[in-house]
């Protein structure tokens, strides 16, 4: 019997090894992408393009689809727009499977990782309009001296105020807050039963504005040093915490809204800290709410806000990269960017369009003004996880200890920043 069992086990083992080796041999599903291209040649074929976007809502999806359809008609290349439910996951899965979308939204925090494993093709220097982009945006998307992808637009955070509630509380234009104290008192005036004065999301992507106003940031401007546990940051978080505690500020989730825009639209909050995209959301879901946009108040260290931008990423595995380049040039042209801006809010990423944009949107000038002093999100590899963890901790800011939170963020950052 023992011999039988041994033979059987050998048989099973042989089967398994053969199967594994066969799999290794027929690895047809995978593309053995051997690093980024040495040559500057872009691929070209007749294949249709897939464009994956992380849409903020129907307005954005519709606008992108329209633009791409127009380009398709003009260029003769078919293109399909996919709105992802979870962009980073779908991108990662697509890269691993060797069948990613040809063009996609790429955020600053994911950029470094995808460049590192060769998933993304750098094409910035091949663009016709590469000198037209704002330098700060270009630097956001430059890795190891290479301009990787074209910024598609950018937004800043500003203070969005519900004018009806503002006037009903007896406030005027002169009361628009320019310091932290004024913000606190105005929020207090506007806080009533069932409505808070100021709301925002419980994330670094909003609270970072307060930190900037106090003079602090997470990672130094050149990206080499973690500076999360500075006293300035503690001051900023303490300020927010105090007002969360006294009920004049609130996190959107805590007052029953999915994000700041929804809290604003449902008048659960009289003011919100949000970015350009709020205009599209409000127009679509809450068209009756009247609002005005003001620059965020200055903190102890002066003005501060945050800037967000995404770029159009090109996949290394795309079979038709030339068409993609052409499409990107189309999508970043002045006319197209202004059209996007009108549809869902963000500001054009090219300097030549700035004047046109301001003329078309005088009421949103505060967003553009913020770009002078805005800080962007850190771009180091692995930063996403640290920020996700920070956001998780921020959700309990009202009862937590800012010093401790920032210290833990500092520890995590040190593992990620500076080698």
């Amino acid at each position, binding site marked *: 019997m023992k011999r039988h069992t041994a033979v059987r086990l050998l048989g099973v083992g042989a*089967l*398994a090894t053969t*199967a*594994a080796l066969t*799999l*290794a041999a027929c*690895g047809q*599903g*995978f*593309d*053995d*992408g*051997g690093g980024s291209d040495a040559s500057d040649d872009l691929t070209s074929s007749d294949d249709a393009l897939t464009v994956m976007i992380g849409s903020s809502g129907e307005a954005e999806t519709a606008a992108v689809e329209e633009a791409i359809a127009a380009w398709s008609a003009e260029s003769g290349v078919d293109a399909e727009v996919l709105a992802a439910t*979870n962009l*980073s*996951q779908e991108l*990662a*899965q697509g*890269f*691993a499977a*060797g069948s990613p979308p040809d063009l996609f939204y790429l955020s600053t925090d994911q950029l470094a*990782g995808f460049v*590192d*494993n*060769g*998933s993304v093709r750098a094409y910035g220097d091949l663009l016709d309009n590469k000198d037209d982009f704002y330098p700060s945006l270009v630097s956001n998307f430059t890795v190891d001296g290479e301009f990787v992808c074209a910024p598609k637009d950018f937004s800043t955070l500003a203070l969005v105020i519900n004018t009806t509630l503002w006037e009903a509380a007896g406030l005027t234009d002169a009361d628009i807050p320019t310091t932290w104290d004024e913000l606190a008192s105005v929020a207090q005036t506007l806080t009533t039963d069932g409505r808070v004065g100021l709301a925002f999301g419980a994330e670094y992507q909003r609270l970072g504005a307060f930190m900037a106003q106090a003079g602090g940031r997470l990672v130094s401007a050149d990206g080499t040093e973690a500076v999360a546990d500075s006293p300035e940051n503690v001051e900023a978080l303490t300020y927010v915490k105090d007002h969360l505690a006294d009920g004049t500020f609130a996190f959107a*989730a*805590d007052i*029953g809204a999915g994000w700041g825009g929804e809290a604003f639209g449902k008048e659960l909050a009289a003011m919100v800290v949000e970015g350009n995209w709020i205009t599209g959301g409000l127009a679509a879901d809450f068209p009756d709410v009247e609002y005005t946009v003001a620059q965020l108040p200055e903190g102890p260290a002066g003005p501060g806000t945050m800037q967000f931008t995404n770029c159009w990423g090109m996949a290394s595995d795309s079979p038709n990269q030339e068409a993609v380049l052409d499409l990107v040039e189309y999508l970043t042209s002045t006319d197209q960017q202004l059209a996007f801006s009108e549809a869902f809010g963000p500001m054009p990423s090219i300097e030549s369009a700035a004047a046109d944009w301001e003329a078309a949107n005088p009421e949103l000038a505060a967003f553009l003004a913020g770009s002078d002093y805005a800080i962007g999100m850190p771009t180091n590899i692995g930063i*996403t*996880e*640290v920020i996700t*963890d920070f956001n*998780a*901790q921020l*959700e*309990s800011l009202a*009862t937590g200890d800012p010093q401790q939170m920032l210290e833990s963020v500092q520890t*995590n950052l040190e*593992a990620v920043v500076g080698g």
Partner: protein
Amino acid sequence: MTATVHTPRRAGSRGGLRRGEGVAGWLFTLPIIVILGLFLFVPVLMALWVSFSDWSGRGSPLSSNVSFVGLQNYAAITTDGGLPERNFGLALRNNAWYVLLVVPLQTALSLFLAVLVSRAALRGRGFFRTAFYFPSVTSSVAITVLWLFLFSTTGVVNEVLSWIGLNGPNWFNEPRGILHLALAGLGVDAAPQSLASGSFLGVTWWDWLAGPSVAMTALILMAVFTTSGTFMLLFIAALQNIGGELSEAAMMDGANGWQRFWRITLPQLRPTLFTVITLGLIGCWQVFDQIYTGTQGAPGKTTMTPAYLSYTSAFTDQQWGIGAAISFILFLIIIVFTIFQRWVLRERAVSRRRRRPYEQAIAAAASRRAAS
């Protein structure tokens, strides 16, 4: 098994009625061998390789660029002291509390329902069984969507609670643990020094003892709601098999309902109990669908579970080695728990002390019979 000749024949034997049976046997089982082997057996081997390698997510994991890195990925989540370790610790903590609460609750509730529904004189038994079993039929996605609605800030649960004067919490957005909340109610607001200093897997002992968060509690209730029906059926079948003889005998001996249940019915349910608890443990340690659909680990990473962490590490953060490592550690945990649980519930010989009265009674009866 067959009624014919019992002489052991070698399979695939020469001639006779059973000729060709060997071939038929292999042909019949070929589909399952291929599919189970290809999609269950080989994948596990491949994932094992990925967990010991540095594959970054592009190209084949079996290509020559990918190298063996030993236990690096496992170390990253258990001893390295960074964010992966802390995430793993949090995920384990969340899932441990989930298991701790769901398994006893669902076992007790399903047993309770089974006993109620198995009562001798009960009209509408079918209706009640159907009502209790129906949630188990639905998909976890559908139930999670429903639960998100029921437990929203202005949802059904909070409204019902307000009828009895309680102010329901902001269920799915509340990251504080229920133990911490209870302790805060008793005045213990901050961590005592001893618990705040030490830590395991990057999570302080105080945080380990936080209990499931309020959001996790909503998910726990959902798990009990959806699985109690299935296990109730198992218990009903077992109760029917037991029959009432011993119970009746005990009743004649003067045992009340509770004693009858505890000392007579329950021990006989041991095999079913074992099955239910094992299935419960295995299921609970793999919570994924509900997290993916409902909370995605929020609020404050208190609904993150190892299964979901394995998925996000690999598919979102592109840390495939770490994702695979997490899933294998989870595999080990499940095995350990199952074995431990088997050991705890094993049939044990009755201790000598407890046996004595019975032995004496039997001896007395035997001597009486011998004497008469």
